[in-house]
């Protein structure tokens, strides 16, 4: 059932696609986090910005990924942006939500104490509120990373230059070649699971005071 010869011949291609997969996902999560932090800080100061931001992000999130990827081809043409714009947009829903929730979770007493110690607005934000928001932000990064790793595969729709490991799933399905589908599907699943575990660790490491990991699953 598995064509081992094909696999042996395609080790460099597999490595290249794995690298591409991680690279596309990492850029999306990093850019998404930067934007979410900026928007989150803005929203922490102007609360009435939260509902419209959340609404727009939720709206984008309901658009199925193949539709968004395909739409981008017509709008911006084919470049790395065609893949990255949808990926970043999808991370924003998760990350912005969690950044805002993180700032909300800062106890009012702590804020008052910081004010009483005459922290300026910015210093309070950076040195008091941000560290306390880290657990929820890290939880968001975990979900965003796992979901982005899945979404990268779908960017294979855009053409052979994209998709990371998804390239093999698409090409394998087109050619009806099981080995190639597996060569894309199995490493993708392993990457997603590994990212999930990795970020659970990162979360625990960033928040040593939370000995018992905060409920690993949160109801939606």
């Amino acid at each position, binding site marked *: 059932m598995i064509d081992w010869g094909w696999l042996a011949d395609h080790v460099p291609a597999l490595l290249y696609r794995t690298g591409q997969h991680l690279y596309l996902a990492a850029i999306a999560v990093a850019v998404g986090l930067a934007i979410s932090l900026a928007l989150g800080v803005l929203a922490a100061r102007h609360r009435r910005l939260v509902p419209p931001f959340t609404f727009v992000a939720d709206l984008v999130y309901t658009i*199925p990924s193949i539709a968004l990827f395909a739409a981008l081809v017509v709008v911006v043409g084919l470049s790395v942006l065609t893949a990255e714009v949808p990926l970043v947009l999808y991370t924003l829903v998760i990350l912005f939500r969690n950044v805002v929730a993180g700032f909300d979770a800062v106890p009012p007493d702590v804020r008052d104490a910081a004010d009483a110690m005459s922290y300026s607005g910015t210093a309070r934000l950076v040195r008091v509120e941000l560290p306390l928001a880290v657990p929820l932000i890290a939880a968001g990064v975990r979900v965003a990373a796992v*979901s982005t790793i899945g979404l990268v595969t779908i960017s294979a729709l855009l053409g052979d230059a994209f998709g990371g490991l998804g390239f093999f799933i698409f090409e394998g399905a087109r050619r009806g070649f099981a080995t190639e589908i597996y060569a894309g*599907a199995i490493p993708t699943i392993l990457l997603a699971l590994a990212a999930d575990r990795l970020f659970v660790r990162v979360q625990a490491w960033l928040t040593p005071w939370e000995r018992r990991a905060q409920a690993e699953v949160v109801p939606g």
Partner: protein
Amino acid sequence: MTVIDATAAWLTDPANWTGPNGIPVRLAEHLGVSLVSLLIALAIALPAGLYVGHTRRGSGIAVGIANVGRAVPSIALIGLVLPITQAFDPARGFSLYPSVLAMVALAVPPILVNAFAGIRGVDAEVVGAARGMGLTELQILRRIEVPLALPVVLGGIRSAAVQVIATTTLGAIFALGGLGRYVVDGLAQNDDGMLFGGVVLVATLAMTAEGLLAGLQRLAARATTGSGRRPRSRASLARPIAAP
């Protein structure tokens, strides 16, 4: 403006609204696959979630299944089962079965987690009082826990339904019908009108489903708890969402 013109022309062309590749047929296929998948997932995840929530047994396993289910990308799962189902049934094994299986796997985690978290969140004193009044365990579950947990349980079903409707689109990559067909074929044939028409249809369907189900959830919550307020806990703000 040409893209908008092409899209409008495609959407308003009567030829696209009839026949086996017409919009009504594709919409029916899309909803059919989504509904079947959702029903299978409900049959699996709802009893399991209620059981785990009520007895508090097996919550570790439920969390584990939910976490793995959330992490595994749908398209990779389709790829994983496709060669196997295709060996049994060359036609439907390539498109229908893998898609339904992946959609079930997508829908199980939110239904399962919300069912058990909702039931577990019911005030222990209320359950204790019911037990003191002589209610059987099944009666406690049916008359006390389920009604009180209903908004959370429905929240899980809603989020599963929206995700499934949006993600069924992916099946088009593997020759499944549904509205995703137009997006994939439009891209392959360089037909911007069909592509964008498909994008519009798919996005409209997903957003309509989200809006309708949110409304239903609010109605149900009002009917059971007397307030239509969505519970705004920290958890609901930080809800993790699976891939669109």
